[in-house]
């Protein structure tokens, strides 16, 4: 069953369909670039008009958690790519192991971000709607806007990661049913593209949140 390769009726060959699916995913990722792009424009405007307060807010972020999370995500992309290399070589067992490790790393990211970092942020009164917001006075508008960006962007990114976790589980399930082989593993590639893209979004958000405002 693993070697059965078939294409849908509107395609000329399995390769034709595989390449089309991958192109389709890249096009979808381009739409996501624009989606997050609007949010980045929001960052640009908020920082430009409120730079002192905005950066003051940025300095309150937990750099160690952000940096650790970046390392975790980058490693998760590595592990998944290794899994893809394994299925190309015919080793589905290793693919499943890699997917499980990727899953674990993804869940670790989510746990650190939402279980730890957000809780700390709330405890330190960094939530913008908090009546005891950590700073008052002329910097508070900018700082508030920074944390608006912070919470919205991390929430949206987290949502995309949760979807990614779901996709990983789907791949694991299909792999365990023996559906992938060196000849057919398009879903593995397509999910890998999505996962790496979510990684890329974080690579951009990381400096916007933790690094740019950290200067004097």
């Amino acid at each position: 069953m693993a070697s059965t390769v078939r294409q849908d009726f509107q395609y000329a060959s399995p390769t034709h369909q595989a390449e089309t699916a991958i192109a389709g995913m890249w096009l979808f990722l381009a739409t996501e670039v624009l989606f997050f792009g609007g949010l980045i424009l929001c960052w640009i405007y908020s920082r430009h008009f409120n730079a002192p307060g905005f950066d003051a807010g940025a300095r309150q972020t937990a750099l160690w958690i952000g940096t650790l999370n970046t390392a975790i995500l980058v490693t998760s992309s590595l592990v998944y790519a290794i899994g893809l290399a394994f299925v190309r070589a015919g080793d589905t067992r290793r693919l499943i192991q890699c997917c499980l490790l990727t899953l674990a790393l993804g869940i670790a990211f989510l746990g650190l971000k939402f279980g730890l970092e957000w809780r700390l942020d709330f405890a330190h009164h960094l939530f913008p709607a908090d009546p005891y917001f950590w700073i008052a006075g002329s910097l508070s508008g900018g700082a508030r806007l920074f944390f608006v960006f912070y919470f919205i962007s991390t929430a949206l990114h987290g949502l995309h990661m949760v979807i990614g976790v779901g996709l990983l589980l789907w791949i694991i399930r299909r792999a365990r049913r023996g559906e992938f082989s060196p000849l057919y593993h398009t879903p593995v590639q397509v999910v890998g593209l999505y996962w790496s893209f979510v990684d890329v979004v974080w690579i951009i958000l990381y400096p916007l949140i933790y690094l740019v405002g950290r200067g004097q």
Partner: protein
Amino acid sequence: MSAVTADGTVAVEKSGIEGSYLTDGYTLRSWLLTTDHKRIALLYLAAITMFFFIGGFAAALVRLNLIVPQGLLGSAETYNRLFTMHGVVMVWFFLVPAVPVTLGNFLIPLMLGARDLAFPRLNLLSWYLFMLGGAVTLWALFAGGVDTGWTFYTPLSTMYSKSHVVLAATGIFISGFSSIATGLNFIVSIHRLRAPGMTWYRMPVFLWSLYSLGVLMVLATPVLAITLLLLALERVFHIGVFDPAIGGDPLLFQHLFWFYSHPAVYIMILPGFGVVSEIIPAFSRKRIFGYKFIVWASVSIAVISFFVWGHHMFVAGTSLYSAVLFSILSYLVAVPSAIKVFNWLGTMHKGFIRFDAPMLYALGFIGLFTIGGLTGLWVAALAADVHLTQTYFVVAHFHYIMVGGMVSAFFGGLHFWWPKITGRLYPEMWARVAALVMFIGFNLTFFPQFILGYLGMPRRYFSYAPEFQVLNVLSSAGASILASAYLLPLGYLVWSLLYGERATGNPWGATGLEWQTASPPPTANFVETPVVTQGPYHYPTPESMQLHG
């Protein structure tokens, strides 16, 4: 029943409806769970027809209100909700989808020589998302409506409006995913599913237009999504990104909104260009003039349309430097549109012109779109725009393009491909009458609005100065004529489904792969995969026609 002709295309004789996609399953399930692009196109057609009449009904009430200077309906609040309803429904639930999801979905695989789109299940999902978005938006509108205008400007929409802004924004947000899915499907299909021998330059212009449209849908709509999300968060949680009191910028909303909405207007008109580019050669029996110019014009429009959004904000408070930049770029985007008009005229020159209904609609399109486009140049000029912005001049400008242009093109395309879609011919005399009545009614409705705007009547006001009454009454009278012109096709097209003459595979004698299969087509579109060996519009040249008398 079919024969392979000398150039490799498959010719099919008159075959009727039996054995077509229409009879391939009679259950509700076979329609609601179909992945056949042709059935999905019909599902969409039913939906957008409904939305068209809802939006039109709102417009009728708007025009009714404006027949007396103090406003017949008596309430500014109600008026605000009516024009918002008209705008929201017409923009997102009629104009943006219209041609792409009906004619596009139906024809793209046929014109490509393919058996379906690249992602048929995504296509079905996009219809369900559209219906869900539409349902949520209609709920918002009928639960009391929205009073911000379809543009949802802040701070009215985020801080002061007491209407169902978030609900409407949610409905539009959901429908945006439908748009993205459709655009993605079109782009990938056109790249990947062309029949053997169909190079890019052998594709009909309609496909190039829908490709360009796909680019717009796919890249602009996500920005609308984030904009609506930020709008909802600002309104519900007062996040402040649009609120100057804490350092936000209300213009940020306008930048984000128009970054989508300007390409959106090209989303609305590009398919119209494509339809007209198919009708004119067919009814001039002549190949299109300047094929490469016209197809690259479509692509250029798609690209340049992303650079001009600031022209909606000339008096909003942006910097003068930014305004000048956007004004110059706006003049640039007019060039490819103008090129197309010359292409169409060049096609008709020395052609054998027939004035069937589709051609009447296409000719109306050329005239009305040109007027609309030229008036766009006036409002793109900074100094002129200071006087003309937010007046009826702008309203007339975009209605000339959207209604005079796009709706005419939609009806033209619907009539042109009606035999292909349904296997029936519509009654020609009634169709010509409807086209003429539409042209007359349209001009009577909207030409006075140019004058009103020039004289200074503001838009979105439920009452106006008494000296504007005559022109307003003329406009409203025209609207009633226009309404009847829209109801006529509803009548005779439905009639034709039951009693219309059966159509052959190619009743117009047009070129294009869609005409090389039965009317209506079988589910798999073609009996054999067509092989393309020549360019589109391979009509005999006028010289060769004269030789044969």
